[in-house]
């Protein structure tokens, strides 16, 4: 709309006509307080805090609902306005308990801030306050009724934002109350309950302490924690989460996960896993000492030095006697990019084997190769919030990629985005879809062919050929399309769908995976047949830039064994050693423990998993919240991981790999190019030597570097040294260091480098499909599930009370 000029407090402001006054003022740096107003949600005008005086209008106006027009004159800070706000606060405080000293929100409470600002602590209301007991609505959501100021934010975010509608207001006037969707009379224990996705958005958005989190309440105060913004470890969306961390006797513990950093890739959103399921780290079963199997079969705690020496010696010995081909290396989906890269480099250059794989949760190899030679076709998670048209084939974002689902819902709500969904089940997102196509089982391949123009496959997609035809017509009429693909589509099927998408000029693609760094693990080359950046393994050609990595590694020129072949090799006695970093293949792929009897197994993990109990050496690992580095989400958005928590005794996978290499007698400087004179493109840290530092100076300098998110690249355990090499060698990882270190996301498309010849095509059809998605639900997160008390509580809660309400509502026409 056309710009208009208004006057606020004597200041001329120009903004598009129809913009809300409260937003105009915010942009102009004029603060207007509000409880009920929340950007992105419908307007409520319930709290009356944002009142302003408008010239020639008899009554005070609410800035949150006033749309500006030419020539309007407003006053936001007159004594009249201040008095009105003060009176509003006094009314709000009429029943609000002044229990700030014990309230969770104390210190970060909007009502508290406003009360201080307007000096409304003295009240004219002498009547006793209405007290009500707190209610437990679910294992994670608690409600303190008297603290509620009825701003309706929770009601709106649950309905509009989450499409769950589990909260509402009942009664009226001073007896109004927020209620959950299972009333006391229907609940098994006669206590009102929430039957919902337990995302905790209502807690996050509550301006006061009325809604509090079961995992955090009464544990600490906001100012007693350090707040570290890092990336959630759970699903492949890679949400930014702010972890509240507090010191304990053996490190520092995460006490809260929330979303204070609304600038992150996930905007306002965080799901239940990001918010509560950090507690696996505090599980009592966590191992904090290296364990080495003794001749009597027992695992005995030993020192790090002893364990690593043992691993190094044994690896070197087996490498000498049996060769690299007898080694198997398996990495995890929650390693950082630096660790994943280092692990495969260690396997290829130190162990001289390509027998390396990871638990694949989506076929990124096929994805990357289908997009080979294209540019700008990879979608960012941010695209899901702005794309005009979105096609979702397969997947179930609501359960498996909640931030994607949130963004799609927001996009439909705010921008009227056209969402097209094809799925074999009636996923919840269909409620936002312009068209939902119910695909027959195993019908995705046929769908891809049909979309590409092959009408003969119609009957394999769905019996409803008319719906199918109009679905395709709608897609064809889109000039740009964001295509989100579930991990059910792999190999040739995936390629067919992408080939169809590539015919739409503005189409972008994303493949949805399961964990924080599933994408990174594949990008970094935890694959037997592909080097980092999906670089083909083959004869080395010094003229071909694609051989650059292999040339530096001196790695074998033929593909290695994949994950299943590694265990097949063990079965026939050809696997002398198995090195597992952050994975549990024995449980995941149902491996018979007996086959591993004669294999020397080293496992790096937090817990004694099914794989770890078989190991000869178990090394206690730090989790993603306890280390730094970077990860790539499903979309290829690269983000920085910052060390938040700490646990005495554990080490990062990075450090362990380097130390094992060192104990094997490998040149660590070659593995991790650290220190001055390294061939890194980044600048090595000046630790003070150039200034003739005296003792202690270097330490202080290191503190400064850390404080500025710079890491001294003097240590062999320094991930940023590895990142230099990733940046230098891995196709598509031309990242912006400043962007990364500022805590911002950046989109990378490691698929953009064409593979020599048509090797890519051949590979896709020949490649074994080893993708085994975790099929996580809202309340599971792969192998971490069983160690997270909050996820278990939520599962139990859900069993007691199956989700009946949130998915039975059809779209209102």
């Amino acid at each position, binding site marked *: 709309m056309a710009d208009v000029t208004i006057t606020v407090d004597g200041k001329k402001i120009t903004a598009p006509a129809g913009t809300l006054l409260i937003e105009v003022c915010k942009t102009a740096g004029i603060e207007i307080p509000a409880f009920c107003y929340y950007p992105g949600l419908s307007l409520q005008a319930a709290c009356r805090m944002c009142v302003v005086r408008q010239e020639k209008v008899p009554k005070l106006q609410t800035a949150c609902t006033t749309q500006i027009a030419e020539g309007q004159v407003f006053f936001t800070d007159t004594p009249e306005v201040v008095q009105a706000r003060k009176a509003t606060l006094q009314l709000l405080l009429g029943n609000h308990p002044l229990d700030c000293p014990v309230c969770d929100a104390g210190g970060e409470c909007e009502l508290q801030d406003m009360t201080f600002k307007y000096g409304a602590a003295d009240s004219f209301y002498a009547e006793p306050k209405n007290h009500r007991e707190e209610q437990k609505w679910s294992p994670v959501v608690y409600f303190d009724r008297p603290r509620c100021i009825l701003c309706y934010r929770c009601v709106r975010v649950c309905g509009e934002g989450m499409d769950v*509608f*589990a*909260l*509402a*207001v*009942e*009664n*009226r006037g001073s007896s109004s109350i927020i*209620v959950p*969707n299972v*009333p006391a*009379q*229907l609940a098994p224990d006669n206590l009102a309950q929430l039957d919902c996705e337990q995302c905790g958005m209502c807690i996050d958005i509550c301006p006061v302490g009325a809604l509090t989190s079961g995992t955090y309440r009464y544990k600490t105060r906001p100012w007693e924690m350090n707040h570290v913004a890092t990336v959630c470890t759970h699903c492949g969306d890679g949400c930014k989460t702010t972890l509240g961390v507090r010191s304990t006797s053996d490190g520092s513990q995460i006490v809260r996960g929330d979303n204070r950093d609304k600038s992150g890739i996930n905007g306002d959103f965080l799901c239940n896993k990001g918010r509560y399921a950090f507690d696996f780290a505090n599980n009592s079963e966590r191992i904090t000492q290296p364990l080495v199997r003794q001749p009597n079969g027992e695992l005995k705690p030993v020192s790090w030095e002893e364990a690593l020496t043992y691993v190094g010696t044994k690896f070197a010995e087996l490498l000498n006697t049996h060769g690299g081909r007898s080694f198997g290396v398996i990495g995890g989906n929650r390693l950082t990019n630096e660790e994943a890269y280092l692990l495969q480099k260690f396997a290829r250059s130190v162990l001289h084997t390509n027998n390396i794989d990871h638990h694949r949760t989506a076929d990124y190899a096929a994805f990357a190769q289908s997009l080979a030679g294209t540019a700008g076709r990879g979608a960012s998670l941010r695209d899901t919030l702005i794309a005009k048209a979105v096609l979702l084939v397969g997947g179930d974002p609501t359960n498996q990629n909640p931030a994607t689902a949130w963004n799609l819902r927001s996009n439909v709500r705010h921008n009227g985005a056209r969402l097209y969904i094809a799925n074999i089940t009636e996923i919840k997102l269909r409620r936002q879809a312009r068209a939902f196509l119910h695909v027959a089982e195993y019908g995705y391949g046929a769908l891809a062919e049909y979309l590409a123009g092959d009408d003969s496959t119609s009957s394999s997609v769905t019996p409803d050929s008319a719906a199918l035809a109009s679905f395709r017509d709608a897609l064809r009429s889109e000039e740009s399309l964001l295509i989100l693909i579930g991990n059910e589509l792999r190999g040739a099927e995936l390629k067919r769908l992408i080939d169809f998408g590539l015919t739409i000029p503005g189409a972008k693609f994303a493949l949805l995976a399961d964990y924080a760094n599933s994408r990174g693990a594949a990008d970094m080359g935890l694959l037997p047949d592909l080097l980092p950046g999906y670089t083909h393994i083959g004869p080395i050609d010094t003229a071909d830039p694609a051989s650059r990595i292999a040339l530096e590694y001196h790695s074998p020129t033929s593909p290695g064994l994949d994950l299943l072949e590694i265990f097949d090799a063990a079965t026939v006695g050809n696997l002398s050693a198995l090195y597992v970093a952050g994975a549990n293949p024995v449980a995941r792929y149902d491996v018979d423990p007996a086959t591993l009897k004669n294999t020397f197994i080293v496992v790096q993990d937090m817990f004694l998993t099914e794989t770890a109990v078989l190991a000869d050496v178990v090394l206690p690992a730090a989790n993603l919240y306890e280390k730094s580095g970077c990860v790539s989400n499903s979309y290829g958005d690269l983000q920085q991981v910052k060390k938040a928590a700490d646990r005495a005794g554990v080490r990062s996978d990075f450090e362990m790999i380097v130390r094992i290499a060192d104990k094997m007698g490998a040149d660590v400087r070659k593995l991790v190019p650290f220190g001055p004179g390294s061939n890194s493109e980044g600048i090595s840290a000046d630790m003070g030597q150039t200034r003739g530092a005296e003792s202690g100076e270097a330490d202080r300098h290191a503190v400064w570097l850390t404080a500025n998110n710079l890491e001294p690249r003097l240590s062999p355990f320094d991930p940023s040294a590895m990142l230099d090499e990733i940046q230098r060698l891995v196709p598509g990882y031309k990242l912006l260091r400043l962007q990364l270190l500022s805590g911002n996301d950046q989109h990378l498309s490691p698929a953009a480098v064409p593979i020599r010849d048509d090797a890519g095509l051949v590979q896709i059809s020949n490649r074994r499909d080893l993708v085994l998605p975790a099929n996580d639900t809202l309340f599971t997160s792969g192998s971490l599930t069983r160690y997270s008390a909050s996820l278990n509580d939520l599962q139990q809660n859900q069993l007691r009370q199956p989700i009946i*309400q949130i998915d039975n*509502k*059809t779209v*209102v026409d």
Partner: protein
Amino acid sequence: MSTVTKSIFTPELAAYFDRLVTVYPLKRSALIPMLLYSQDEVGYVSEAVIQEIAKRLDLFDLDVRSVLSYYSMLRTKPAGKYNVQVCTNISCMLRGGYEILDHCKRRLGIEHKQTTADGMFSLEEVECIGDCCSAPAMQVNYEFHDELTPQKVDEILDEYAAEDRK
């Protein structure tokens, strides 16, 4: 539209509801009329009523409860067979509305929003029922009684009790 196969309402009311959802541009506009008609037929808005109405209007049960709890004339517990509503708004108050209310309380042995043990009478203190000219007034179910005195109230209540025994 969600179809309701086993309605808890009489066939006439169910048929009426089938039509009612079609007459508004927005289906949920039929919510309040439906609640009122259901209350008249069932006696109160029961859990089953909430669920059926939600289903008919494609709403969540919670949406129905939210509206239901806003209006004091909608009730979620059974009232007596004769629901006595005594007005105590200004005209009635000036002409002895509270005496009438107190008399009812004594006579029936119940308080505001309560029901007699035999389920015959329930009592409510209500706001203006639009009979100010002949205050004080009360309403029993849908029948008006005005220019009340305690004696007259006794006669009226006796009459209802007798009617029931017939």
